């Protein structure tokens, strides 16, 4: 039974690596990462894919955080009880796990990077913030940050170098934390180790670990 993974574009490459590593019978259907800039688009775009794919796959899993959709994604999924979402508010928490809260407690002014952000910082991120057109806005966006923490998935010298360049552009110290796929791996794996009905039962019994609200 092939599982359809409706995946945030910012997690696509990493989820693809996990599928290969574990040999999961799964296919990826992407949702553009640019939706993070317009989070009101996330739920409608996910729903469009659900509608297009629910007859094609016996099982669909949404690999997304809430990502600023203001709960709209979980409200949507509440209407599709057979479709699951992995746990987590956003990819920083998925990669860093409990360390995310500790890092924020330690320094609320932490700007996080992931491999995706390092790859796309000069393009997607700076353009979506308008910094290619209005470089004078840099201070508006970043003046309160005190440090950059790079959560690495595929730790490599070129990515580390890009992270250093980003930190230099922001004028902030850089800390590198190799997290690998972190909780993202565990939270997807649980969907392959469990049948949908068993997972739903476990969620109903454990409200803390729900993947979406009742």
């Amino acid at each position, binding site marked *: 039974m092939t599982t359809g993974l409706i995946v945030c574009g910012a997690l696509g490459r990493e989820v693809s690596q996990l599928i290969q590593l574990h040999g999961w019978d799964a296919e990826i259907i992407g949702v553009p990462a640019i939706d993070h800039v317009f989070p009101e688009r996330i739920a409608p775009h996910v729903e469009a894919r659900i509608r297009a794919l629910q007859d094609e796959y016996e099982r669909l899993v949404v690999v997304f955080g809430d990502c600023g959709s*203001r*709960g*709209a994604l979980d409200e949507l999924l509440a209407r599709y009880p057979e479709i699951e979402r992995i746990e987590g*508010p956003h990819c920083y928490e998925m990669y860093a796990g409990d360390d995310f809260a500790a890092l924020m407690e330690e320094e609320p002014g932490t700007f996080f990077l992931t491999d995706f952000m390092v790859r796309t910082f000069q393009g997607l991120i700076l353009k979506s*913030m*308008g910094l290619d057109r209005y470089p004078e*806005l840099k201070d508006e966006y970043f003046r309160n940050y005190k440090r950059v923490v790079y959560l690495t998935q595929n730790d490599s010298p070129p990515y580390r170098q890009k992270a250093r360049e980003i930190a230099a552009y922001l004028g902030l110290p850089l800390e590198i934390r190799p997290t690998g796929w972190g909780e993202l791996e565990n939270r997807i794996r649980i969907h392959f180790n469990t049948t949908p009905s068993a997972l739903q039962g476990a969620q109903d019994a454990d409200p803390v670990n729900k993947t979406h609200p009742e």
Partner: protein
Amino acid sequence: MNDEINIQELPTEEILELMQEDLYDGLADEIVAEVKELLKRGLAPYEILSDGLIAGMDAVGDDFRDGILFVPEVLMAAKAMKAGMEVLRPLLAETGVEKTGTVVLGTVKGDIHDIGKNLVGMMLEGAGFEVVDLGTNTSADDFLAAIKEHNAHILGMSALLTTTMTYMRVVIEALKEAGLRERVTVLVGGAPLNDAFAEDIEADAYCRDAAIAVETAKKYMQIRKAE
């Protein structure tokens, strides 16, 4: 503003129209020059504010709400507005112009994100509100002290993180304990919030974006005046 336009040769009406266009385009230097020119012509600071800057920011707010303008463009417009206000603010204070209302604004404790909050502040100022911006990482004590000191009508709180938005409830409880809750309208906003959260913490309204925050603040001030 087109380099070929010499504002000294333009009628006052046209300069006011040009101000609205330049504000929309985020041209701070041009806005400052136009404000100074209009002051030189004897226009009252309030007229320049309402017919130039506020009218321009209204158009920006409408197009932001309707998805025509996006955050970078609105930030540029707000910076131009701020530059114009820096010239006008002392003159407005001298002439004792009546404010739409007073808003205390801040990002809650533990959170340093302020882009949305700053936009709200600048657009509220553009709508004629007095804005007391407490910045980021603001404690309940600081919110309460500012509300008392400035006799604020509205408290606006912002948070970007699910871990910090819960602090809004702490502030609202502190308002209740201090006997201030009934006299202050509480508006909340930020990426992880929604209407249900605002209702749960007993805020008066959740504001999805800066344009809606301004509309909501105006609405509550009208209600207050009608009471």
